[in-house]
């Protein structure tokens, strides 16, 4: 349970960054940190004490219990999609920097139009 709470603290750190920072790159970093905490949470839910990696070598029925493969497969998909969204965000940040010469959200808002 402590680990779940620490995971949630990591998530809160990311949310705090998204809400309070005015630098576009910092906002992207905070979003990435939020994503990381979610991946870790999902991987933790599927863990079984003393379990082994879900790879069956040779025999079909393993000696020790394997950890849950379902959350791991979902996290794998989520990581790749997070990469795609990150690349989009950074590209938009580059375009904004080239147009306005700053990463500051307030200045970009003022110079609009």
């Amino acid at each position: 349970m402590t680990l779940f709470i620490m995971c949630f603290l990591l998530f809160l750190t990311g949310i705090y960054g998204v809400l309070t920072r005015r630098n576009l790159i910092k906002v992207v970093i905070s979003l990435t940190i939020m994503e990381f905490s979610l991946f870790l949470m999902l991987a933790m839910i599927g863990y079984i004490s003393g379990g082994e990696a879900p790879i069956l070598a040779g025999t079909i029925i393993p000696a020790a219990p394997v950890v849950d493969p379902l959350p791991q497969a979902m996290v794998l998909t989520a990581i790749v999609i997070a990469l795609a969204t990150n690349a989009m965000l950074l590209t938009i940040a580059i375009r904004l920097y080239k147009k306005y010469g700053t990463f500051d959200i307030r200045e970009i808002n003022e110079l609009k139009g």
Partner: protein
Amino acid sequence: MELMLAVILGFMIIAAIYAIHAKDLLSAIIAQGFVGYGLVICFLLLRAPDIALVQIVVETITLIFMVAVVLDSTRKELDVQVDRKQYRIAGLSVLFMLVLLFYFNRIIAPLDGFGEHSMRMAEAYAEGAGQTGAINLVAGVLWDFRGYDTLGEAVVLFAAAIGVVTIFRLTGKN
């Protein structure tokens, strides 16, 4: 085992806080890389080698991209003058976090404790391993049982790649 995870998670939280408050954007990105690679170690401790490998690759690509973005710019964090508006924003975000804490409690209640997970969802997948012939259960889930999910993932990836190329090629009015 639990202690090791907790120590690494603690380091990750510290690095995350530093990444948000760093004055230099490059050091912020390096701190973010620390969080990402710490996540790899956590995945390995949680017996998830597949996602650990994917996370290494993805984190490296993201870091290279971010460093390329930042080295091209001024790199300096904006001068943060502490005004009343900023205090208001910080207060509001703390309030928002308290609301989130309530939801976290609701979410965590029906879950099994750490390490006591029951395989009620994954039993069918584990039994199907003989049918798919996949030695790696995660690969079996990804490519056989949930193949359409993986197809959708590839579609999203290609859509993002097309979007990146399109945004870069726009000339725009300066």
